C-alpha cells in the first residue's frame, strides 16, 4: 500500500511540476473554456431571467470540451517521448499510475473551473460562488469525467487517430455524468428543494464509484500489448 501511494503521488507530482514549467496544458484548456463562454454569451443573447436555466448546460459543455482537450494533451505528453513506456516499466501496480494521472487531470479541470466560474459570473450576472452545492456538483462531475476520461485517453493515445478518437469514445460514455451534473447544477442554481436534486447527486456518486472501479480493474489490460 505504501509503494502504491508513493508511486501514485510521484506521478501526480511529476504531472504538476511539468505543468508548472510548461503551462501548455492548462493554458490551452483555459483559453478554450473562456472562448466557449464568450461565444455562448453572444450567441445566446439571453434575457437575465432565462439565464439561470441555461447556465448549468453552458458550464458543463465548457468543462467537458476543455477537459477533452486537457485529457488528450496529458496522455500525448506521455506518448510522444516514449514516457508512457517509461512509466509502464516501473515495478509498481499500474493502477497507481492510473490514479496519479487521474488525480492530476482532476486538479487541472478544477483549476479551469475555479477560473471559469468568476468569469462566467461576470458575463452572465449570476453569482455562482453563492451556491456551495454547485461546487460539490462540479467536483463530483469532474471526478467522474476524469476517471473514465483518463482511461479512454490512455486507450486512444495508442492509436494514430488519437485526437479524433477520444471524443468519439468518451462522449457517449459520459452522457450519464453530464446529464446528472447539468440537472444537479440547474437544481442548485434555481434553488430547488434538496429532495429534487438528490437523485442526480446519487447518480453522480454512483457513476464516480462504478467507473473508478472499472478503470482500476481494466487499466492494466488497456496498456498491455
Amino acid at each position, binding site marked *: 500500500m505504501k*509503494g502504491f501511494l*508513493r*508511486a501514485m503521488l*510521484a*506521478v501526480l*507530482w*511529476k504531472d504538476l*511540476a*511539468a*505543468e508548472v*514549467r*510548461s503551462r501548455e496544458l492548462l493554458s490551452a484548456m483555459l483559453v478554450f473554456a473562456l472562448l466557449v463562454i464568450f461565444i455562448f454569451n453572444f450567441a445566446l443573447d439571453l434575457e437575465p431571467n432565462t439565464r439561470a436555466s441555461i447556465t448549468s448546460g453552458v458550464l458543463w459543455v465548457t468543462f467537458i470540451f476543455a477537459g477533452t482537450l486537457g485529457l488528450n494533451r496529458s496522455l500525448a*505528453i506521455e506518448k510522444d*517521448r*516514449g*514516457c508512457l*513506456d*517509461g*512509466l*509502464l*516499466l*516501473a*515495478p*509498481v*501496480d499500474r493502477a497507481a499510475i492510473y490514479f496519479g494521472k487521474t488525480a492530476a487531470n482532476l486538479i487541472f479541470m478544477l483549476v479551469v473551473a475555479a477560473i471559469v466560474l468568476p468569469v462566467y459570473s461576470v458575463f452572465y450576472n449570476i453569482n455562482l460562488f453563492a451556491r456551495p452545492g454547485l461546487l460539490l456538483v462540479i467536483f463530483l462531475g469532474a471526478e467522474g469525467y476524469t476517471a473514465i476520461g483518463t482511461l479512454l485517453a490512455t486507450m486512444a493515445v495508442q492509436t494514430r487517430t488519437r485526437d479524433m478518437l477520444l471524443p468519439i469514445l468518451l462522449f457517449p460514455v459520459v452522457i450519464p455524468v453530464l446529464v446528472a451534473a447539468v440537472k444537479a447544477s440547474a437544481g442548485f442554481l434555481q434553488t430547488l428543494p434538496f429532495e429534487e436534486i438528490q437523485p442526480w447527486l446519487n447518480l453522480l456518486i454512483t457513476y464516480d464509484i462504478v467507473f473508478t472501479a472499472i478503470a482500476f480493474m481494466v487499466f492494466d489490460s488497456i496498456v*498491455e*500489448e
Partner: protein
Amino acid sequence: MENHALIEVQGLVKRFGPKVVLRGLNFSVQPGEFVALLGPNGAGKTTFLRILASLSSPSMGMVLVAGYALPREAAAVRQRLGVVSHLPLLYGDLTAEENLRFFGKMYGVNPLESRIREVLRQVGLEKRARDLVRTFSRGMQQRLAIGRAILHDPDVLLLDEPHTGLDQDACEMLDEILKEEARRGRTIVMTSHDLARVEDLSSRFDVLSRGVICASVPKESIPKDGLLTFYRNALGHHEGKGVE
C-alpha cells in the same frame, strides 16, 4: 544440470492479429554477457525486447528473466531490468535531477539522493543536473536515459537501437558508458544495425530473422572485422531456406 541463465526464452511466439512476428524463438543469456541482437528491419527485434521488458505479452512460449516468468511475475522482472530505447523516455519539462528523482521513487530506490548524484556523475551530467531535459542535446538525453535505466541497479540492461539519431561524438560517449557498464558485470542485450559499433562492444552476436534466432556466435569465434560476413551468411542461409 542447474540452469544459470539470466534470460531464458523457449518457443516464444508473438502474434498481432493474423500477423506472426516471433515464430518459436529460443534465446538464452548468461550473467555478464553483452549480446548484440542483429537483424533486418521487421525481423522482430523490437517486439522481442518489448516482451523481455514486460511491455508486451507473449502469445505463446516461456520467458524467464532472473528466474521470474513473464507475464505472470512482471513486477519482479521490471525491478531487475533497465530499458533504453531510441526514444529518451524522459520528461522534457523536468530537470535531469527531477527526472531521476521521479523514476527513483517509482522504483523505490533508497537512498535516492546519493544514488542520483552517483548516476549523474557516471553519465557525465552532474553539471547539468538542474537544467531542463528539453534543453539537452540528443546525446545528453541518451546519456541521461542510460542513467535512468541503471538508477535502480538492474541485473539486465535492454537497449533498443540506442545509437539512433546520435552524432559520432555522442555515440562514442554512449559506448564508453556501455563499456563501463559491461566492465561492472551488467548483463546487456542490445539491438542495433551498426555492425562496426556492436563488434567493438559486444561479447556475443545473435542474428534474428523472420521471428527466430537463426545464428549465434561468441566474439572469439569470428575473425576481426568478420562480423559483416557472419551476418550476411547467417541471413542469406536462413532466408534462403524460406522459413515459414
